[in-house]
């Protein structure tokens, strides 16, 4: 029986000499859909929305990624959520958009370690090296759509919808142990 990943305390879930998987603390997540000129939203959220698909923009309290031609995802501090939602609401008359709180939708796992690129190849057909540091990509990981942020050369964050998280975590646990056996 696979238990919900969110039942765990934030912290290291599995580690070996090869790689480490930890659960990140809960954050506020917002899905933004908007068309046309989105510069007014930049002022409202305090971050300039990135223009290329897969590119990110960050401030110390908020990070945003463009997922599609009219779709962005923002991760922010939990305390900032009401302020961001009301900032969006004020702009609604001039720039119709959809800003939805999806904080309860997914968990974030942090993957790191010297063999983290090998660990990722267990589930994805893409070459993880092709994701530039600082970018994020929505992609297919072992049949599941996940959002993979490359935070550093050997550190990734993976946002996974709750119902798929136990499956992905069990694959990663196997991978972490397997790669350690090779070292």
């Amino acid at each position, binding site marked *: 029986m696979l238990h919900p990943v969110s039942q765990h305390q934030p912290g290291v879930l599995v580690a070996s000499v090869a790689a480490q998987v930890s659960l990140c603390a809960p954050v506020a997540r917002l899905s933004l859909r908007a068309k046309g000129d989105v510069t007014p939203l930049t002022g409202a959220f305090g971050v300039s929305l990135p223009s290329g698909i897969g590119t990110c923009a960050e401030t110390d309290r908020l990070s945003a990624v463009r997922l599609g031609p009219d*779709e962005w995802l923002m991760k922010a501090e939990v305390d900032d959520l009401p302020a961001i939602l009301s900032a969006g609401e004020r702009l609604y008359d001039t720039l119709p958009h959809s800003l939805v709180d999806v904080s309860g939708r997914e968990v974030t796992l942090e993957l790191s370690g010297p063999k983290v690129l090998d660990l990722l190849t267990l589930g994805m*057909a893409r070459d993880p090296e092709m994701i530039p540091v600082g970018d994020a990509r*929505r992609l*297919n990981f072992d049949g599941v*759509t996940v959002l993979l942020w490359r935070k550093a050369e050997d550190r990734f964050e993976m946002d996974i919808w709750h119902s798929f998280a136990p499956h992905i975590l069990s694959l990663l646990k196997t991978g972490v142990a397997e790669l350690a056996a090779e070292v």
Partner: protein
Amino acid sequence: MLLIHCPYCKETLPESEFTYAGQAHIVRPEMPSEQTDAQWEEFLFLRANPKGPHYERWRHFHGCGRFFNAVRDTVSDKFLTTYPANTPKPDLESLIGDAE
């Protein structure tokens, strides 16, 4: 595995991120109530089945989520080009010339 270029993400990505969505450039009638049964039949059911270049729709399902159009050779499975939805059909002659 096929590698498909997504015209929105501007990257060439593995086939497993994409789903096929049938023949492209099928226009929904503007006045559906004026259509005859034969016209409806053609709109709903009759599709080209060419041996060679085929205009078709694909969706970058595990990615930007967008539908786009592609020209794929049904014999070699080679993608001649991909282009955003709502843009006109590319000229087949020049595509075949490019491929050769």
